[in-house]
């Protein structure tokens, strides 16, 4: 059921239950709720660390309904998206999904998100931030239709090594043949269920999209199928741990979305986020192309790097120093102790040209033990590969756990 209220009495509630709310409630032992855009979201159902391990060891289920979703259709959908996005969208064939960023004319990242090529010429764009004004501003000259359908689609991320087997047990025949970044459709209880092999955890995992009216039955059948395979509801705290290990950046955390930036110099270009691979200069004009070409020539201001930090203390909100501890090289944007990599890891924004693979820094970490605060300067080095990148993420068909 569509749960968000846009009628004149919407003001009675600041936030709305997700279509999965009744089921989330059953699992939410901690009775804590947080807000994700228009919806109630669960930070942790019973223990964030244990939920994290569900995601890495068995299967964690996370409600992604609040994610902003747009439908782009019309004869010019592809050229339009190629104008909007930095990457070459023509390479995302029907039935495929691609990660992308989009920039303003200064080449600064407005948001990142995923492009689902649902059917020939029909695209869904998922993003963190509301984009309809910007997307429509860019329609000029293109025969396209754009609608935001965030509230008309319920979504679940089903992530972890047993996710494929669970979906198979739920009756999604042939799901094991879906390759990473592929999407497919199933008949489900008389409606259409869209499943993509995507996620925000860097592991084997799927995202399920369905009419909100079928949200509860989807949840029920999923958890019934997964009962023997370790399925657990997972909150946003666990997801955050999973995504840092996978090296995925988060809008508003690892970069400032350009549309919100009161201080434009605080924004970042794709190159400055390590996303140069998403910029395709040979596809013709796109937003930010000129600025990004100039940047490529003149050099970027920042490098977003992955840091492997000595010791066992998470480097939350830390400053990163050039070795010697005198000159600030940058700041940590996300950090954690990684249970899977068994290392203190971080994403950090460093002043270019600092931040080349292998380069060593010192990270200033404040930590407390029983209310006594200490400070340590921990040696750290820039690593090239993500901290967690298991072969099972790509294996098709996945192992049948």
């Amino acid at each position, binding site marked *: 059921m569509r749960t968000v*209220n*846009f009628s004149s009495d919407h*003001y009675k509630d600041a936030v709305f239950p997700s279509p999965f709310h009744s089921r989330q409630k059953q699992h939410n032992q901690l009775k804590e709720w947080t807000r994700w855009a228009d919806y109630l979201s669960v930070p942790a159902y019973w223990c964030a660390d244990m939920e994290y391990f569900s995601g890495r060891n068995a299967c964690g289920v996370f409600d992604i309904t609040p994610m902003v979703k747009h439908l782009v259709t019309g004869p010019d959908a592809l050229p339009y998206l190629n104008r909007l996005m930095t990457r070459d969208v023509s390479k995302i064939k029907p039935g495929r999904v691609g990660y992308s960023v989009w920039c303003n004319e200064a080449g600064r990242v407005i948001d990142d998100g995923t492009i689902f090529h649902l059917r020939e010429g029909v695209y869904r764009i998922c993003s963190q931030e509301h984009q309809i004004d910007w997307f429509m501003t860019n329609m000029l000259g293109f025969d396209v239709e754009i609608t*935001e359908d965030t509230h008309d689609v319920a979504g679940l991320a089903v992530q972890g090594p047993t996710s494929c087997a669970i979906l198979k047990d739920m009756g999604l025949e042939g799901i094991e043949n879906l390759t990473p970044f592929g999407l497919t459709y199933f008949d489900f209880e008389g409606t259409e269920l869209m499943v993509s092999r995507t996620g925000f955890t860097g592991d084997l995992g799927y995202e399920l999209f369905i009419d909100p009216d079928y949200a509860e039955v989807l949840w029920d059948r999923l958890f019934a199928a997964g009962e023997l395979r370790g399925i657990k509801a997972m909150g946003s705290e666990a997801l955050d741990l999973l995504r840092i290990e996978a090296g995925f950046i988060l809008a508003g955390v690892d970069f400032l979305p350009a549309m919100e930036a*009161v201080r434009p110099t605080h924004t970042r270009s794709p190159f400055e986020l390590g996303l140069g691979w998403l910029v395709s200069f040979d596809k013709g004009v796109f937003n930010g192309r000129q600025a990004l070409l100039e940047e490529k020539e003149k050099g970027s201001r920042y490098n977003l790097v992955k840091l492997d930090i000595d010791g066992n203390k998470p480097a939350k909100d830390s400053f990163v120093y050039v070795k010697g501890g005198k000159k600030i090289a940058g700041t940590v944007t996300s950090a954690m102790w990684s249970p899977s990599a068994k290392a203190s890891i971080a994403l950090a924004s460093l002043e270019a040209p600092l931040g080349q693979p292998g380069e060593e820094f010192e990270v200033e970490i404040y930590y407390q033990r029983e209310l006594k605060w200490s400070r340590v300067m921990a040696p750290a080095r820039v690593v090239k590969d993500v901290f967690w990148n298991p072969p099972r993420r790509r294996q098709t068909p996945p192992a049948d756990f």
Partner: protein
Amino acid sequence: MTKKYDAIVIGAGHNGLTNGAYLAKAGLNTLMVEKNEHIGGATTSLPRYKDDWIYSNCSYVCSLLRPEVYRSLNLAKYGLQVVPYGGAVTIAENGDYIGSYVDPDKARREVARHSHRDADATARFDRDIMRQCRFIRQFLLRTPPDPTSFKPRDLLEMMYMGKEALKLGEDLIYDTMRFYTMSISDFLDEYFENPLVKASHSGSGIIGSALGVMSPGTAYILLHHAMGDVDGSMGAWGFARGGMGAISKAMYDCFTDYGGETLTGNGVDQIIVKNGRAVGVALENGDEHYADVIVSNMTLPRTFLECMDPKDLDPGFLKKVKNFKIRGSSGKINIALDGVPKFTALPENSELARGDMHLIDSTERLERAYDDWKDGIWSQDPYIDMLIPSLTDPTMTPPGKHFMSLFVQYVPPRIKGKDWTDQQVQQFADTVINQIEEYAPGFKDLILHMEVRTPRELENEVGLTEGNIFQGELTLDQLLFNRPIPGYAQYRGPVKGMYMCGSSTAPGGGVMSAPGANAAREILGDLNKTNTVPEGWLDD
């Protein structure tokens, strides 16, 4: 007369009190002279109905008051408490409305209810406003540089401004030029598609100004209303607990504690100039008081055209003063209510009623209200900024009763070129009350008492020339180093020993205290006294 003071401040409005407090804090023997029996100027809470009913007679909400002044003058210790109020609502004639909620998601959904796209555009709009405000705010407690001067301080200040502008990116410089020159109506058209959404943002562009929403320069006036804050929440507005008079009272108590003296009930008849130097003031009752420094918190025209001998001044200077744009455009109606009015459009007990309420549909309707002003009559379909502070502040009225503040535009200083008659004042009030009655049937029956102020009353009682609430239009030709007039932006008057500290000076009007503080810093510098005026807090 007998005692000689170090400084005399003319006019105990909030800027005069601020100025006096910093001078007295620096050890100057300071005398405040005030024409009214009460202090506060346009920042007053005078009982007009019954003793337990407090009005905010002129200014009615607080946001611009510099937090640095609030803190350094210990205004909290003197009892000042500013309580933020949430939201605003714009009610259309067809019964629809658009509310501005404190909660960001509620706020977004409310706009989306009218236009999905505008809901998204609001984020961009707010960001651009915020960018400009951040830029302006850092200059509020700085004396504007003189761009024609080669003095090191002016050159350094110009360089500082340039550097700060560049820091914010080239877009900001382009945008700044646009903000200062565009109309609020054109500006809103660049962001929004829905007329009611636009209308809800447009009032801030004209409040206090004799310009219409389609007049160039009104985009800046919106910034002027957005650059304040309540406890760091930029753009937020609040009520001074106990009415706006609580602000001037706290300042007065501070001034008095620092040893300042105050004479009320006698206005200045003449600023005494001897040998090209201001040396004292002659009051209406014939008393004369002398001081090394004379500071005027009066409007520019009142100071130089009414309280100085033209023979003491340069004719070129006087001509500029005469040309200063200070046009009355607004009226104020304060009402004691027997209960809360019920607006047909609003849900029962809507939180939106605690904020600014407006009865408009479109920028076009607002522009027509301005057309009446040009015709020399008050708007027949006026713009009303309507608040019920007593819904937030329990100290203003007995329980269940309410104080309603109506700021009304447009109201000309004269009717078709002739002075207002008492009958016209009443007709003006009727126009406003009838307007509200249409949206809130039964409203009239709730009225227990009404204080009506047209520009005539504002000028006669408060001393604001033509009743202009900002002591002069906030247009680019009269802003920055051109405020109040070119060559006199650094608070010094045309004769030695004479200074200006009112809203006629930079950075302009509103209960901000920046002109008063900046003038004090200049005076103390000239006297080689220790500066007591704080530096502005930087946002970064």
